[in-house]
């Protein structure tokens, strides 16, 4: 998790430099998205663990949390 957010911060920093030089902000968005996605990725890893240990209840709850967060991304992009 720590490496995910640090990578996100580094990408954002590189993106800010590129935006300043070339005027393209794509990398900034990628960096910020990497920060936001890190906890969701860790939740996905926990879901995989739960699936391998056959904990159906825990797996259902973790998948529900992931589904809600992904739905929010889709909703906020579409509205």
């Amino acid at each position: 998790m720590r490496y995910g957010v640090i990578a996100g911060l580094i990408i954002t920093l590189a993106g800010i430099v590129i935006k300043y030089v070339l005027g393209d902000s794509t990398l900034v968005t990628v960096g910020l998205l990497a920060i936001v996605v890190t906890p969701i990725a860790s939740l996905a890893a926990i879901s995989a663990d739960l699936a391998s240990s056959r904990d159906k209840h825990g797996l259902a709850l973790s998948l529900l949390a992931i589904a809600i967060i992904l739905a929010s991304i889709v909703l906020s992009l579409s509205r």
Partner: protein
Amino acid sequence: MLYLLALFAGALGIGFVSAIAGIGGGSLMVPFMVLALGFDVKVAVATSLLCIVVTSCSAASVYLRRGLIDVKSALLLEPATALGAIAGAFITLTLPAEAVKCALGFILLYVSGMMLKKALARARSQESAPKLLPARKLLSVAASFLAGLISGMFGVGGGVIKVPVLTMILGLPIKVAVATSSFMVGLTAASGGVVYLAKGFTDPVAVLALAAGIMPGATLGAKYMRKLNPRVVRLVFSLILLYAAARLLYSALT
């Protein structure tokens, strides 16, 4: 450049104080950005949420390695918390900035009161873990939704609600509750943060400056924690919050 230095220095102080007081930095970060640096309140909330993701992930990775996080409790509460955070973010985006400032002022008054109570209270022995009845589960899920709503609306972690829910309702030991809350805070802030990010409210430069300041600040705070009296720090923290709440309410209502 000067505002970047101010952001960095402020974040250093916020990280230091919040590590000693045992509370997330979000409740100080938004008022600092709005009152001291003149940020738009919605940009401050969006930026604060991303910083919370950074700090919470750093702490949660350590807690996960040590096995301190109660994953089952986190998974029970997180869907409701995430839903609350997303709803909160959409509510803030539709409200006028003055209304958000006013509501944030009241939330800070509440947090300040809680901190003051904690600072003045005598240490109590830990209560025994309550039996986990379905009604308690339902209550904890409802409280988590509220915690998420507040987090998404005001750019705070919501630990001030989550930790009591985990200890008093679900009966987790305080260390496990703090670790579990820290893990949940990252997910909640990410859920709310993604809405603001998609709408273009996040300031990437401020995220970097704040994250760069808050992490060493928190490390320093943890180092000096034993040398400073946490009750005095909590008292100072609650007075700062009280001042911030008064300033926000004044600026919103005049």
